[in-house]
């Protein structure tokens, strides 16, 4: 995919004062971010299941094919 870029760091300003209060909170947020990406990438790494490759192949045909 072509949108791997991360949001700009300046967006961190949007964090609430509560979140900025302690380094502990930042540690927790970093761990949550890591866990979220690990969980997500675990699925991404499975690639394209055959089911979907076949679906595209089946649909990607001239409309009248197989009708006559």
């Amino acid at each position, binding site marked *: 995919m072509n949108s791997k870029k991360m949001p700009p760091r300046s967006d961190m300003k949007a964090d609430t004062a509560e979140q900025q209060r302690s380094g502990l909170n930042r540690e927790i947020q970093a761990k949550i971010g890591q866990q979220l990406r690990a969980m*997500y990438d675990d*699925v991404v790494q499975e690639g394209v299941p055959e089911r979907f490759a076949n679906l595209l192949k089946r649909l990607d045909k001239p409309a009248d094919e197989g009708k006559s």
Partner: protein
Amino acid sequence: MKLDPALRDQILAAVPSLRAFAISLSGNVDRADDLVQETMLRALANIHSFQPGTNMSAWLFTILRNLFRSEYRKRRREVEDADGSFAESLKSHPEQLGRVEFQEFRAALAQLPAEQREALILVGASGFSYEEAADICDCAVGTIKSRVNRARSRLAKLLAIDNPDDFGPDHATRAVLMGHDN
């Protein structure tokens, strides 16, 4: 129909990430794959409305997100406590959550309101900018930012309080989450 090979390649390239998004939204692999299939069918049926040169991935995510939300709204009418029943079903059937090491995290994710969950995943895992996520969710950038922040705070509470011993790959993580030094 005959699909432009470049478009077909872009759709295929987006499938792995679409699946990850769908699984994170629905908490169920089978349902997620049905969502991805429905998304591909819709995309192919409406491929003429895709503007070449724009972000195919964002376009497909928008379709999938809208499909999920309309299905979610339908279920909500049938079952009043949609969020609660979802979380309950995950509790009684943890195998729906996939690999063991992520079950704790997925269960916590499932307890977030759908709008916070989708915002957090789009920005924190799919790699979309706040602006792209706002387009996908059809809301303001500021709304996405506040949803992501609320999702992060809520997750921190859920994971730290509920079951700190099961979260995180190592002792240091648990110590941090439990709020004391080693």
